[in-house]
């Protein structure tokens, strides 16, 4: 029964939502929005679980002086300070009735002065990681890697002024061999074809997974016990 009831709910809701996508009349046409609202409400309550898990794990690490426990202190302080400032709208010029991120509020200060720079720092790491990953991927050890390297070089040069300058001398009849044109051709044809093939596969995968779940063939997300 513990497994059958969720399966029945999944089947009925799945069927009703599919119907709602194609039917224009009420209540079918508004079902998706309604269920999205329910999901948002459940998510809000689930956040209490998440916050509770965060507190529990880090308090345990601090109390048992586990390895690197001082990082847990930083996490706990940051979490609790942000929570209190956000909940009570500390420093908000309009008080409790003001916008959560109103100019001049402490939360806005933390957002602009701490959160955004930290996020930007993490994001900027990508530049270095792209360089190291590209170096490994583009080493021309195999036929495929050589093709990848050639295509990447053409795109890289074709998208910069240097590429246009390098092949500007070509006669009109060979204009298609100019690096910007070659780069455009690679992006418009082989790249689009590959992307679409992947997208078709993904769409089929989504349909198959949805069907397996709706029909109760796939039950792993309920746990594997019978």
């Amino acid at each position, binding site marked *: 029964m513990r497994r059958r009831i969720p399966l029945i709910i999944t089947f009925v809701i799945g069927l009703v939502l599919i119907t709602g996508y194609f039917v224009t009349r009420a209540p079918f046409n508004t079902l998706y929005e309604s269920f999205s609202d329910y999901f948002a409400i459940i998510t809000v309550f*689930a956040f209490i*679980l998440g916050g509770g898990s965060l507190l529990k794990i880090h308090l345990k690490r601090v109390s048992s002086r586990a390895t690197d426990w001082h990082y847990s202190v930083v996490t706990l302080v940051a979490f609790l300070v942000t929570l209190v400032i956000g909940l009570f709208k500390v420093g908000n010029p309009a008080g409790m009735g003001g916008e959560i991120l109103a100019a001049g509020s402490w939360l806005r200060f933390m957002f602009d002065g701490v959160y955004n720079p930290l*996020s930007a720092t*993490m994001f900027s790491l990508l530049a270095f990681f792209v360089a190291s990953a590209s170096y490994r991927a583009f080493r021309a050890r195999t036929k495929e890697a050589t093709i990848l390297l050639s295509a990447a070089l053409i795109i890289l040069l074709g998208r910069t002024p240097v590429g246009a300058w390098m092949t500007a001398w070509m006669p009109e009849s060979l204009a298609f061999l100019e690096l910007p044109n070659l780069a455009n051709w690679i992006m418009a044809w082989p790249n689009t074809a590959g992307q679409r093939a*992947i997208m078709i596969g*993904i769409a089929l*995968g989504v349909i*198959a997974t949805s*069907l397996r779940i709706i029909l109760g063939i796939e039950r792993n997300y*309920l746990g594997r016990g019978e």
Partner: protein
Amino acid sequence: MHLCPTTRIPRGLPQTIGLARAVFAIAAISTSARAVIALTAPSTWARAVFAIAALFTLLQVDPVLAQAGTETGWINTDRTQALVLGIILTGAILLYVVLASAGRPLFIRKIAGLETVEEAVGRATEMGKPILYVPGLNDMDEVQTIASMNLLGHLATIIAGYDSRLHVPVRKSLVMSVARETVQQSYLSAGRPDAYQEDDIHYVSDAQFAYAAAVDGIIVREKPAACFYLGGFYAESLILAETGNSIGAIQIAGTARPPQLPFFVAACDYTLIGEELFAASAYLSKEPRMLGSLKGQDAGKGIAIVFILAGSALATLETVTGSESVRAFSEIVLWLFR
């Protein structure tokens, strides 16, 4: 003929149309019943073809029924193409599920990334290091996350058997709840409920880069022997995968977000590309009905290839010959994918 003074429509015509609709509705219901019977009966190709054809008819491929649907305003005609294609693909998948259930042997090609799962877990056990599982950034309303949870269930069963430690940092509270339930049940079914540690599946942060920073920290401090990145990923994909690569972990990634695939391919040992992520759970389960649905996916790809080739051939023929009949066929194929 008596005409209505305001609408100028002949009196009695709406009733006639209503009667016609009722007849079509009854025909549709009986067709659907036959389709269901055909699908559930012992499988033969003829019955399967009939079932798909019947479902096709039911869902408004019949022009008269389509017109009736439009007039009543019940069906969103802008989505008729999606409905038709959905029915064709659903029919193909259901057909193979039925065939597999009946015991028909099915060939499924090997997926290297999934063949290596057990090896990765074994390596982690030998090294005495944990296994990191990252289920992506999306919440439980995203099908990639559901596919990831299904895969996590299989992985947890293998890990429970090897007595390794599984670490799952998550970005969404709801995903944490589902992951905990899934892993706990897997440990239970593997006969190792005592090995399940609830705190190893924990919430980190909803913020994208805070989550990435925390997972990077876990990778650097704990140095897991195997890292799994399976689910929906965004800009943090390369940050995570490169950090995992820097500690020499065996890495298996999979996502249905094409922009992130090159990053995973460059930084991970194995990558499940798009559909393979959705196929993973069925592939690992080896359960006939699940494998049947995989074969159905392949049949769907076959149908897509046929439509693409037919569309290309018809478009070329139309340009060369200028024939009106070729143009009509070409329009039908184009309509399906508009």
